């Protein structure tokens, strides 16, 4: 850059400090929010892929029958064309254990491995150490919880001698090759006639992108061993699908925020640079008069925008990386596999796109500056203003309001383009705020909908409870106490207002392969009914209420019938309602316990009479049922899930950033306006306009835009929420109940409209203060 241009750029950047700062800060915020959004998008979009790549995950996890195939043949299979690496042989079996409280665990796939490493499926040992001797067990992190932590024990009653295993480590296998690991020697000892030892081999393939490629590889492996020796093969694509489902709902949400952020930065940068050109016409004219070429003027004005923008981009990348760290940590907690660092290409791509956007936004007004004729440019700076907006002054002047107010209301009409830019900034800010408020409320509603149990004050179990709250479905399987006696204890207590019984049972459903889970209710369960999406709750036997995915998988609708079998009892149940329940892959059905009497209730959920303290009640009932083998506990609302916390944190952060950018857009426009009107304000002051009247004038000049922006932005935010939430729901295979979708209240919407005004007023507050403080004599000299 030649010296005269650099001097012009330096003076331009220095003289217009507010605009320079606004460009830098707006770009910084936009870049930071883009980095955060993209980093999270990348992290939650492919947590499985990241972990799978890091661990050299197995594309195929294959079980062989050791009685039918020898080690040499299996070694040879590992060298087949298309196999790039293999791991094994690992002896495997399945067990069902009892935890320290004597409750049965779900069936666990156990593998015998002497170390977590290897060519394939290099396990992440997340805590503790690897199993080194018999009696030690490493558990998959997905099973970790209050019942199973380091030091917990697990007894295997079906194995010879009922050995007890101690949990010495928690490990993560992206490929989910097993649920737990022991030493190979220990594994053989745990196998039984019902659960014999099989041999596991893990394969990485050079072509594993599609189901067909994996099926072909499976066929090649099957052909390499004797017929029937290959017992089964698990594809990593199935595991990936299940893993990605947790992250899926965040994608539409992040895309919405990303689009808002991008639109906002384009508007702000375009409006700032256009404003800089618009208010520098005389300067441009003088530059040309002293010999600057149009090209040099374009370069000078482009540089004036790009220098602060570049600073904003650098700061934005740094800020974005800093802000992303805690959110990525949350994401890692939620998915167990995300990387704690922002993807490197995000740190390159976002700045590049930002620079391009800023460059284009600045180029248009810079070209306009270059095209301006010298005489015209100088004349524009001196001539009286054109008649734009005079009608507004006439119209608003008639209103029975203080003059400072009516004057301020008319100001935006003198610069329609600038007013529209300001309006768009407020609209996008309000859309963001409305969307974020709705999203946060929806997340709260989802938490509440998934925690209906805590609506009951006390849970009374016929088996011992473990930990706070109620046991996880399927985990509490011992039923030490007679449910009838436990029920009698609940009925006998004077504090009981109402109660219902509940049990979990494994069932099979025609149309759904494998087992499904059923929640069975006894008594008036309406108070604890999950959120209904459509239809009605159970009113008696012969009915079933099911989640959305259940309907999809069975191809049924409300009013249809399904055949459900539990321990040999088969019933045909009529679907009376669709409910919001994403647990058990969205296939858990809810029915009356009278249909399946073999599954007695294991818990009674009690609503108390007014004035009865839950803790006191639980203590009283526990005193009766504990000797029977039961337990009673006061319920507490369950904590919000990790995903909800991540989404709420992201929504809050991104909203604050985007609303700040909107405020900066307003600030910039008002600074430009105030600068242009400094003479008018000086005249008004010389005529006796007080500082407070000046502040009122400037604030009123944006209040109308704020109100209009709010009126436009709130319905748009509402619409965005109405669109994104169902998409998020569908990504996890469920419709959403009205309590999750219809979260806005009328007063809240009115407040959000007021948020538009607040964004505008906050943005205008600083320049209003400057305008009020500028001495009248100085302002008049600005002529």
């Amino acid at each position, binding site marked *: 850059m030649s010296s005269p241009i650099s001097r012009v750029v330096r003076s331009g950047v220095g003289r217009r400090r507010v605009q320079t700062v606004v460009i830098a800060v707006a770009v910084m915020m936009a870049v930071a929010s883009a980095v955060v959004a993209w980093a999270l998008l990348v992290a939650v979009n492919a947590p499985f892929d990241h972990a799978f790549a890091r661990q050299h995950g197995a594309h195929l996890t294959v079980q062989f029958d050791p009685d039918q195939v020898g080690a040499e043949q299996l070694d040879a299979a590992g060298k087949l064309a298309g196999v790039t690496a293999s791991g094994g042989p690992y002896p495997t079996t399945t067990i069902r254990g009892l935890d320290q409280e004597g409750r049965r665990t779900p069936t666990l796939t156990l593998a015998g491995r002497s170390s977590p490493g290897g060519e394939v499926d290099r396990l992440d040992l997340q805590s503790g150490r690897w199993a080194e001797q018999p009696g030690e067990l490493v558990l998959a992190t997905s099973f970790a919880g209050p019942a199973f932590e380091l030091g917990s024990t697990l007894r295997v009653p079906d194995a010879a001698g009922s050995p007890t295993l101690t949990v010495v480590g928690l490990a993560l296998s992206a490929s989910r090759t097993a649920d737990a690991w022991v030493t190979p020697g220990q594994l053989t000892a745990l196998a039984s006639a019902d659960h014999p030892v099989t041999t596991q081999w893990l394969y990485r393939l050079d072509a594993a992108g599609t189901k067909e490629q994996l099926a072909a590889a499976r066929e090649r492996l099957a052909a390499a061993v004797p017929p029937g020796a290959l017992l089964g093969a698990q594809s990593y694509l199935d595991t990936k699908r299940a893993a990605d489902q947790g992250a899926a709902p965040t994608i539409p949400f992040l895309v919405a925020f990303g689009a808002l952020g991008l639109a906002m930065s384009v508007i702000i940068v375009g409006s700032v640079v256009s404003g800089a050109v618009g208010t520098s016409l005389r300067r441009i004219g003088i530059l040309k008069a002293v010999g600057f070429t149009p090209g040099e003027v374009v370069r000078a004005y482009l540089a004036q925008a790009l220098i602060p923008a570049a600073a904003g981009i650098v700061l934005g990348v740094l800020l974005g990386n800093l802000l992303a760290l805690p959110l990525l940590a949350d994401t890692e907690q939620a998915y167990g596999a995300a990387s704690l660092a922002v993807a490197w290409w995000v740190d390159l791509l976002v700045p590049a796109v930002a620079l391009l956007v800023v460059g284009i936004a600045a180029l248009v007004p810079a070209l306009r500056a270059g095209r301006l004729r010298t005489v015209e440019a100088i004349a524009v700076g001196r001539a009286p203003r054109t008649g734009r907006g005079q009608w507004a*002054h006439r119209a608003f002047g008639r209103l029975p309001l203080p003059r400072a107010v009516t004057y301020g209301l008319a100001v935006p009409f003198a610069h329609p383009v600038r007013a529209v830019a300001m309006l768009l900034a407020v609209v996008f800010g309000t859309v963001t705020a409305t969307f974020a408020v709705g999203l946060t409320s929806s997340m709260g509603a989802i938490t509440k909908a998934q925690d209906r149990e805590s609506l009951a004050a006390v849970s009374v179990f016929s088996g011992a409870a473990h930990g706070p709250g109620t046991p996880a479905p399927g985990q509490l399987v011992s039923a030490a106490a007679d449910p009838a006696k436990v029920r009698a204890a609940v009925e006998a207590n004077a504090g009981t207002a109402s109660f219902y019984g509940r049990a979990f049972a494994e069932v099979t459903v025609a149309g759904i392969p494998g087992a499904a889970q059923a929640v069975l209710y006894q008594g008036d369960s309406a108070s604890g009914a999950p959120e209904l999406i459509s239809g009605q709750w159970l009113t008696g036997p012969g009915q079933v209420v099911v989640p959305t995915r259940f309907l999809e998988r069975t191809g049924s609708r409300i009013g249809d019938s399904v055949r459900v079998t539990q321990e040999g009892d088969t019933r045909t149940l009529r679907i009376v309602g669709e409910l919001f329940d994403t647990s058990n892959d969205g296939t858990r059905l809810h029915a009356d316990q009278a249909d399946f009497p073999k599954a007695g209730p294991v818990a009674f959920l009690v609503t108390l009479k007014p004035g009865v303290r839950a803790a006191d009640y639980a203590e009283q009932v526990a005193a009766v049922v504990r000797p029977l083998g039961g337990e009673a506990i006061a319920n507490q609302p369950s904590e919000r899930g990790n995903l909800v916390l991540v989404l709420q944190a992201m929504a809050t952060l991104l909203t604050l950033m985007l609303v700040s950018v909107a405020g900066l857009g307003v600030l910039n426009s008002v600074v430009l306006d105030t600068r242009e009107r400094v003479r*008018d304000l000086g005249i*008004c002051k*010389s*005529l*006796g306009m*007080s500082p407070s*009247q000046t502040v009122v004038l400037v604030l009123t000049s944006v209040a109308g835009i704020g109100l209009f922006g709010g009126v436009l932005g709130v319905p748009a935010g509402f619409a965005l929420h109405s669109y994104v939430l169902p998409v998020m729901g569908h990504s996890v295979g469920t419709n959403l109940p009205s309590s999750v979708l219809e979260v806005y209240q009328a007063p809240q919407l009115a407040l959000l409209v007021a948020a538009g005004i607040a964004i505008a007023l906050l943005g205008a507050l600083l320049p209003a203060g400057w305008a009020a403080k500028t001495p009248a*004599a100085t302002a*008049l000299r600005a002529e």
Partner: protein
Amino acid sequence: MNHVIELTGVARSYDGAGPPALGPLDLTVAEGEALAVTGPSGSGKSTLLNLVAGLDRPTGGTVTVAGTRIDGLSEHALARFRRERIGMVFQFFNLLDDLTVTDNIQLPAQLTGTARRTAATRAGELMELLGIERHARAYPGRLSGGERQRVAVARALVNRPALLLADEPTGALDSASGQDVRELLVDLHRSGQTVVLVTHDLALAEACATRTIRLVDGQLALDSRTEALR
């Protein structure tokens, strides 16, 4: 004799190290007097006017205008003082381009909270008095310089100020318009209006003023009243 302006030891410095742009200066202006302030460029004429109007603050001395000591007033009180006690006419009119002639004239009255109808009546009277009633709904950009200055004078008088300050009121006008404004100021003075006029134009000073002072380098170089007493 009632003094509308009383300046005692008034000084205004813009640069702490250098000599003051004005003063120290003692000056009084009596009610009904028409004072012309003359002097070369940079002599402190406009600074003096700004101090009297409360648009600027002295760095030394006291300024009392229409019985109010204004050098220590807050910005808010100064604004109230200006709108109620001072009318100002500028060289380049300083009309608001967005407002009609009527709206420009009414503005100071509206800022004081005068009732809409009262302000409109007063503006109508002044437009009629100054011969600009046919331009009532026009915008300043469409008027000649002389007409614009008449609008500015009407605006200055709308709140019946104790003091009318005029800063080079004919400086941007052709000779015919200048003569027009000159006659207007003479008429206003004859009607009892106290006027302080800053001008380079000695003919204007001679025609309008009952007293003339001359500033040179911020100091009072000549006061016609003192000269006359000699």
